[in-house]
């Protein structure tokens, strides 16, 4: 019987197994940030345990950072303290930190791939559920809690029970205006928010094979929104070409050797999965969400479905939407393009291409928040900033920003925000805020029109 991509990477990292219990899984790369690491550092210090492999940890400041005036001291005292503590902890323990203002600073799941830290066949963890992003490279990558951050600090390992396997296949030709974000929102709308719980998901089919690395990262990023701990895509030439030449990528012969190994990783033809789903690419259209979990998504032209479930009704009441209602023409005052889901250069290129020569609607506040300093520079170098400036969009500095609104980037009470982020939970973007998830193209079009439009009718 053949092995899946997931099996191959997992099995190569098992140090030992406890009888009738979990396995000890070795972790190659540990990414940390300011919010979920301080308690782990404290715990180790209190117990007198040293950090086992500091050179396998990379740190960044992203969740709790301002997106304006990053060169000035952070105003909020608690946020400043959290950032200072990260700097101190990294310094004390010889951990590489790309702090606020550093040329490599950025959202942890944007920064690590663009530096070549993320590579096929690795195991990677971070105290952040969207660590699933890195699976786009054929790595096993997943989010962990702070107790587990401490475990990896102490031993570079975790005690885990091997998850079951799930494959989602999408074949066919995507329609014009359908982006990777629409593909994953479509999948989650079909499968629901807990269909992947207990599973690791592989995405297969020509739709993913033809996607750029940026697109694959958008897809894998949202695996957690259907409950899956992680998502993976088989590494191929697109993957190898992306990694080649990046700061931490192997070079010369070492790179070729790695590629030879990475080529052995894709799922064998005779491997089987515990659960399989497949979809037709042609059925996918630009998507939006109407509720308070990412599974509550519809094609942009569709009406909100009927459902008698009390939790469903509570969700619609929060959003102030009605079953049977269409969202096209709904006035929108806030648009956010950013987050670890959609803040890479390709996302801003798509937005700029639509926005070029147009103006933002007067009623809209439109924030563009790049995923990293490198993306920010690229936006300027490619002339996209000029397009955004002329159209009245505000390009801010990198960070998680309004995706979780830990900093000042909050959507006001009761306001709708068409957002390229990953979660539309109640209050996620600020107390009382109402999030509508969408692709960067739909977000850009909403900002220009001041309302939701059926983008498919504007592209032909």
């Amino acid at each position: 019987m053949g092995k899946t991509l997931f099996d191959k990477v997992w099995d190569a990292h098992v140090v030992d197994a406890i009888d009738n219990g979990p396995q000890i899984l070795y972790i190659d790369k540990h990414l940390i940030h300011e919010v979920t690491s301080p308690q782990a550092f404290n715990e180790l210090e209190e117990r007198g345990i040293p950090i086992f492999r500091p050179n396998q940890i990379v740190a960044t400041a992203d969740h709790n950072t301002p997106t304006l005036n990053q060169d000035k001291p952070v105003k909020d005292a608690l946020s400043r303290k959290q950032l200072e503590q990260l700097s101190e902890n990294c310094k004390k323990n010889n951990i590489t930190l790309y702090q606020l203002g550093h040329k490599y600073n950025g959202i942890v799941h944007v920064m690590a791939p663009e530096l070549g830290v993320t590579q096929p066949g690795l195991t990677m963890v971070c105290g952040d559920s969207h660590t699933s992003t890195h699976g786009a490279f054929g790595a096993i990558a997943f989010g962990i809690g702070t107790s587990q951050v401490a475990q990896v600090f102490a031993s570079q390992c975790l005690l885990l029970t091997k998850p079951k396997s799930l494959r989602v296949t999408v074949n066919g030709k995507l329609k014009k205006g359908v982006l990777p974000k629409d593909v994953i929102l479509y999948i989650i709308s079909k499968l629901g928010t807990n269909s992947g719980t207990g599973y690791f998901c592989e995405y297969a089919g020509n739709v993913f094979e033809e996607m750029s690395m940026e697109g694959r990262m958008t897809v894998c990023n949202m695996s957690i929104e259907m409950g899956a701990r992680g998502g993976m895509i088989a590494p191929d030439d697109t993957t190898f070409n992306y990694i080649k030449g990046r700061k931490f990528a192997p070079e010369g012969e070492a790179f070729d050797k790695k590629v030879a190994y990475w080529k052995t990783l894709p799922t064998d033809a005779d491997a089987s999965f515990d659960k399989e789903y497949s979809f037709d690419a042609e059925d996918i259209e630009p998507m939006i969400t109407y509720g308070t979990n990412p599974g509550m998504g519809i094609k942009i032209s569709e009406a909100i479905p009927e459902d008698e479930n009390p939790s469903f009704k509570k969700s619609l009441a929060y959003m102030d939407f009605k079953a049977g209602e269409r969202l096209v023409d709904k006035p929108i005052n806030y648009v956010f393009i950013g987050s670890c889901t959609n803040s890479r250069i390709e996302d801003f290129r798509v937005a700029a291409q639509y926005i070029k020569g147009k103006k933002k609607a007067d009623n809209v506040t439109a924030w563009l928040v790049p995923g990293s300093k490198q993306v920010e520079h690229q936006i300027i170098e490619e002339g996209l900033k000029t397009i955004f400036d002329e159209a009245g969009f505000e390009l801010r500095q990198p960070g998680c920003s309004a995706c979780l609104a830990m900093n000042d980037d909050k959507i006001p009470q009761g306001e709708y925000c068409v957002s390229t982020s990953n979660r539309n939970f109640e209050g996620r973007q600020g107390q009382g805020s109402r999030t509508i998830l969408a692709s960067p193209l739909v977000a850009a079009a909403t900002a220009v029109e001041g309302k939701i439009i059926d983008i498919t009718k504007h592209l032909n």
Partner: protein
Amino acid sequence: MEKFTTLQSKAIPLQIENVDTDQIIPARFLKATDRKGFGDNLFRDWRYHKDGTVNTDFVLNDARYSGKILVAGDNFGCGSSREHAAWAITDFGFKVVVSSFFADIFKGNALNNGLLPVQVSEKFLSDILQLIGSNPETELIVNLEKQTISVKDSDLSENFEIDAYKKTCMINGYDDIDYLVNNKELIEAFEAQKIY
């Protein structure tokens, strides 16, 4: 970690599905650098209105209900990996959360903090929610050794699953760090002969 063996307590019914960790503890309260005090902000935006007044419609503010067991709807703890959610629930005083389904990361975080996630059938969940709803004095008995959850003075009872290793950890108050640090030689040997 605190040990857990058995618990007999009244319970608080939270009849909402897909409770995400952003509701359990909103992101704006994640700026602390220690583990204490998160209970004050547990379900903050459901317990309080935006102006700070108490939302009397929310079950945690309903004086009829109390206890160390939280009984919640399907898919509890989805979303963000923040362990602050488990810290907030334990800091508030809960020792057990009962649901018909738990999100993976939350479940792991709960177990690492001595908070027992008890997964029951949908039928059992709906039965106990109804019982507690009609009689807030209803007491539940959770026995980790036997892996059972039952309603006091009734025939209603169900077995629940838990990983044998995690069960031992909960009963004895062990955590994973001790185990891993004690296996350093194995880990170093693995590093020396990695195949990738």
